[in-house]
């Protein structure tokens, strides 16, 4: 029982990370109809930036806030300098650009900081934090930090005029222009926010998976799965999807271990977690393409 709870808790922590990255993907998807394949690498790069800041002597949380701000600027710049000139380009060109960005961030991180695996500190105190035996301090901290970030984003989008303008621009850009919203800047802002949310995920997960240029590869896959489960055009769904996928993968691995213990037959275990994510992707795409919480969009042609 305790082991089950442990698995559940660690699924919750992983799910929080997936939720952040999935949300970043969805934020860009709803406003541009593009999936940013470089989202994971951008988060990885952000994690390196915060490592560098800490290496220069800053405390964790100062580096954290600075990194989120730098990532925001990075997101805005990418949109303005790279994607803006391509706004009339065919989808395939944009996908190639995303893959190019992925490769660029990956190799830049390798060039600046080397491909050697680095340890990444956890800001949460070891003792007196967490619930002993069930959830560790870092896991609990990750869940809390993500919930705070998600809460802030919710308040921003739901209750501020700028958040409303961004939602309007995403829903109907032309009409948003007709009420005076500067849609181009809203897109850039969306990129900035997505990069910031990704940065939070990168910094939080770096302690768990260790810092290296390829650290986000698997996580991006999980994030895709999460976004698809929740409905790719639904931000709240993506967050829920993140937690669902995080918990599900651990539960499947746990069930596999139990079966192995009971029967001695190995069917599925920790090694197949990523496979679970891929099966989820395929399953959702075939059975319910709009996701659990997504709506089917019927387009007039």
């Amino acid at each position: 029982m305790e082991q089950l709870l442990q698995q559940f808790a660690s699924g919750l922590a992983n799910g929080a990370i997936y939720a952040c990255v999935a949300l970043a993907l969805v934020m860009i998807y709803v406003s541009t109809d593009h999936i940013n394949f470089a989202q994971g690498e951008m988060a990885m790069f952000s994690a390196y930036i915060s490592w560098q800041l800490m290496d220069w002597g800053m405390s964790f949380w100062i580096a954290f806030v600075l990194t989120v701000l730098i990532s925001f600027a990075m997101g805005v710049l990418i949109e303005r300098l790279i994607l803006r000139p391509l706004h009339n380009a065919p989808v395939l060109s944009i996908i190639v650009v995303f893959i190019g960005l992925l490769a660029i961030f990956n190799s830049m991180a390798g060039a600046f900081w080397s491909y050697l695996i680095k340890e990444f500190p956890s800001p949460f105190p070891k003792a007196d934090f967490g619930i002993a035996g069930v959830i560790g301090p870092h896991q609990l901290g990750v869940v809390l930090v993500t919930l705070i970030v998600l809460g802030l984003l919710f308040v921003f989008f739901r209750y501020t005029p700028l958040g409303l303008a961004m939602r309007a621009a995403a829903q109907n850009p032309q009409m948003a222009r007709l009420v005076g919203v500067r849609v181009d800047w809203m897109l850039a802002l969306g990129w900035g926010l997505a990069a910031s949310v990704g940065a939070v995920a990168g910094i939080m997960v770096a302690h768990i998976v260790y810092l290296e240029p390829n650290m986000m590869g698997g996580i991006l896959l999980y994030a895709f799965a999460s976004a698809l489960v929740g409905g790719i055009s639904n931000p709240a769904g993506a967050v829920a999807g993140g937690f669902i996928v995080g918990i599900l993968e651990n539960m499947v691995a746990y069930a596999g271990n139990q079966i192995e213990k009971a029967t001695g037959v190995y069917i599925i275990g920790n090694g197949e977690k990523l496979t679970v994510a891929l099966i989820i992707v395929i399953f959702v795409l075939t059975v319910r393409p709009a996701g659990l919480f997504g709506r089917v969009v019927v387009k007039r042609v």
Partner: protein
Amino acid sequence: MAALLEVSGLKAFYGQTQSLYDVGFEIPLGGITTLLGANGAGKTTTLRAICNMVRTDGTIRFDGKNIRGMATEEIVRQRIAHVPEGRGTFTTLTVDENLRIAAYTRKDKQGVRDELERVFVYFPRLKERIQQQAGTLSGGEQQMLAIARALMLKPRLMLLDEPSFGLAPLIVLEIFRILRRINEEEKVSILLVEQNAALALDLATHAYVLETGKVVMSGPSDVVKNDENVRKSYLGY
């Protein structure tokens, strides 16, 4: 009366296709002007051209200032409100959000609250539906919301594209009554594009008739109404 909007030599293009040739007209300050014409004559394109939503050439002067080529969102900030054809609302946002988004460019919070109250005087039905998603409103209510949202911009000129589109006759009459009140009480000049020529000519003081991207006739509504060609082509008697 001085002209609020002066359009001359206006051409418009969709890609390589030219759809307006040398369109010119004036909208007097405080008046209601209508653009008539068959499908494809260029009525909607003319409205879109004013807001720089298509590629244009020529001059468009608003209040004496050339606005042609300005970005759509900057033109709107000159207080020109465009109610596009179809249901011009953000369907996934609530009625309240639809109205507030139009006040996004304004800084005075008290002014926005007063404006909201004034808008509800014209459209009391929207107040009852304030927390409802715009997409769940009836067609007539969505059209009312689109006009109400345009009012929130505190416009000097309102461009209306087919406000009667797909609505029951009674609702259309109600909307046109409200438009007349808005014109008189809020001192908003109106440029109206309408398929329903009889209704449009009743409301408007001036009319222009477009055919294949050119103005072929213009004058006070009464004169246009009694023109034989207009009667046959647009009024059907």
